């Protein structure tokens, strides 16, 4: 048995049915089995890791989460599937796929194209994360809506909108939300660049959500968790929803200070 395990993600039921029909048609040439199906991005995140899919046929225009962002989150899985993007008509996406050598199909899909794409993608393995990142930028889908924490065979999504601050520690970045903490493996600089509109750097190792800034306090006023800046007077930033005070470096202070009138309206 050498069947390729294929997962189908498309928000339109007829489109999923059509792909299954085509997979059945090409069975003699390329044996496949449908490992799972999903109708939106979040369902893919939920269902795909557990079903051992080797290849994902992914519609790029789905509710919940765009196809390219989804592919980036899946890349963190230990056994990430190879991905073939499917699109009805999206010139920008097709250009980005071409530029970054990502596999894609156009709807309506032809059987012979499907065979070729499945062969090529499954031979090449999971798409490289940098290529997806670049493609994401080129389609100007904008910044991601989620951070993802990949566990062994599970993906935990943290909505970017819920993150209050990010702190770099050794090789990890800690995401702090109202609910708790998550560790992700992404360079802080890259996050700063991707989400320049949402987060502002307050310190060499720390980004905070602009919208969460409530005020500033003197650093030597004896608050907890102020870090190492106790010798010198400095400012701490006060965030909504967390007790922790984060030190602002002298270098960032002018830029950070200017947030306050906005924050107070």
């Amino acid at each position: 048995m050498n069947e390729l395990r294929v997962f189908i993600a498309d928000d339109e039921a007829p489109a999923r049915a059509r792909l299954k029909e085509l997979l059945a048609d090409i069975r003699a040439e390329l044996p496949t089995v449908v490992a799972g199906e999903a109708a939106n991005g979040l369902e893919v995140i939920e269902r795909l890791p557990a079903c051992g899919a080797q290849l994902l046929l992914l519609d790029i225009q789905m509710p919940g989460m765009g196809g390219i962002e989804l592919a980036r989150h899946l890349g963190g899985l230990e056994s990430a599937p190879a991905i073939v993007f499917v699109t009805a008509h999206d010139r920008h996406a097709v250009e980005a796929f071409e530029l970054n050598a990502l596999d894609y199909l156009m709807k309506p899909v032809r059987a012979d194209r499907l065979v070729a794409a499945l062969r090529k993608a499954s031979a090449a393995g999971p798409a490289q994360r940098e290529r997806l990142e670049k493609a994401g930028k080129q389609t100007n889908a904008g910044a991601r809506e989620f951070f993802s924490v990949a566990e062994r065979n599970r993906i935990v999504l943290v909505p970017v909108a819920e993150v209050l601050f990010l702190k770099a520690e050794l090789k990890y970045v800690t995401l702090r939300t109202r609910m708790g903490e998550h560790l992700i493996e992404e360079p802080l600089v890259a996050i700063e660049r991707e989400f320049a509109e949402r987060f502002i750097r307050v310190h060499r190792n720390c980004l905070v959500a602009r919208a969460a800034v409530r005020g500033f306090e003197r650093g030597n006023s004896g608050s907890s968790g102020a870090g190492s800046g106790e010798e010198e007077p400095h400012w701490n930033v006060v965030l909504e929803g967390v007790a922790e005070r984060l030190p602002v470096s002298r270098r960032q202070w002018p830029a950070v200070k200017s947030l306050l009138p906005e924050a107070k309206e």
Partner: protein
Amino acid sequence: MASIRQNHSQNALPEFRNFGVMARALLAVNLLALAAALASEADGGRALDAFVQSTVLVEPPLLASLVLLSAAAPLLRRMPYWLACAMVLALALALAAATHAALAPVAGTGMGRTLLFAGAATVVVLAYLTLHRRAHSPALAEARLQALQARIRPHFLFNSLNAVLALIRGDPRRAERTLEDLADLFRALMSDGRSLVRLADEISLIERYAAIEQLRLGERLRMAWDLDQAPVDALLPPLILQPLLENAVYHGVEPGTGIGDVLVRIERRGDRVHALIENPSHEGGAGARAGNHMALDNIRERLMLFFDADARLEARVEHGRYRVEIDMPYRRAA
């Protein structure tokens, strides 16, 4: 059938029943009266007094002629252009003379002056309205209309074809119906956008469009139709409603993971036709789609080309629902 080509032939009287035409005529005549007052009196304050006094003589014949002209519009339209112009002039002069005679004690000027002003004002306003109309001349308006011809999203075409392909083996009859609907839709899209269509035809078009979307989206699209009070014989520019419904599905239903309720309500309110299309708003939320209001501007401009200032299109978000409303004059097929 009414068409923009007929209405906008080179030498034609303004449409006296159009609100925009009336507003322009009112404004123009009053500006002329003000200019006359300024010209006759050197001192600014005295000129203003003179203007206020002159309004007593100017407004009654002005309003009366606008009312009579809008009543006589069909009659005037059947006359040769120059004769119709002469009739308008005669009407204005007669009304001015009658007003002057009735108000002689307070008039303060001679009959000749009144008639001279009425005649000059009528000629100037007619010339201005004709020029205004030529600025929106047939050639120009047609070129703009063709450029504005609503276009369906390719995304919709390819997804629909894909959905039909999925039906062919399992449900060939539904596949046939869907292709027929697609054919009707594209026939309308490729038709000449210059003729007015009956509301009944536009409604059947959006019903066909909705049937195709229903096939693609299944239970995610929940359509509600409120068309009992729709004046099916009303005339409107083609493809005014379909792009709005397409927007409602594209921005309101497709980005959502749950059920999207879309409401279409069309009704007659006196001599107006009122249409409402409402869908869930995803603005600013996850999955919101970039929209640049192209479709809305496009429809607004087409409404303007057909109805001038007499039609309105408004869009707003209210209680998480996106609402587009159109208010236009109720014109019936002849």
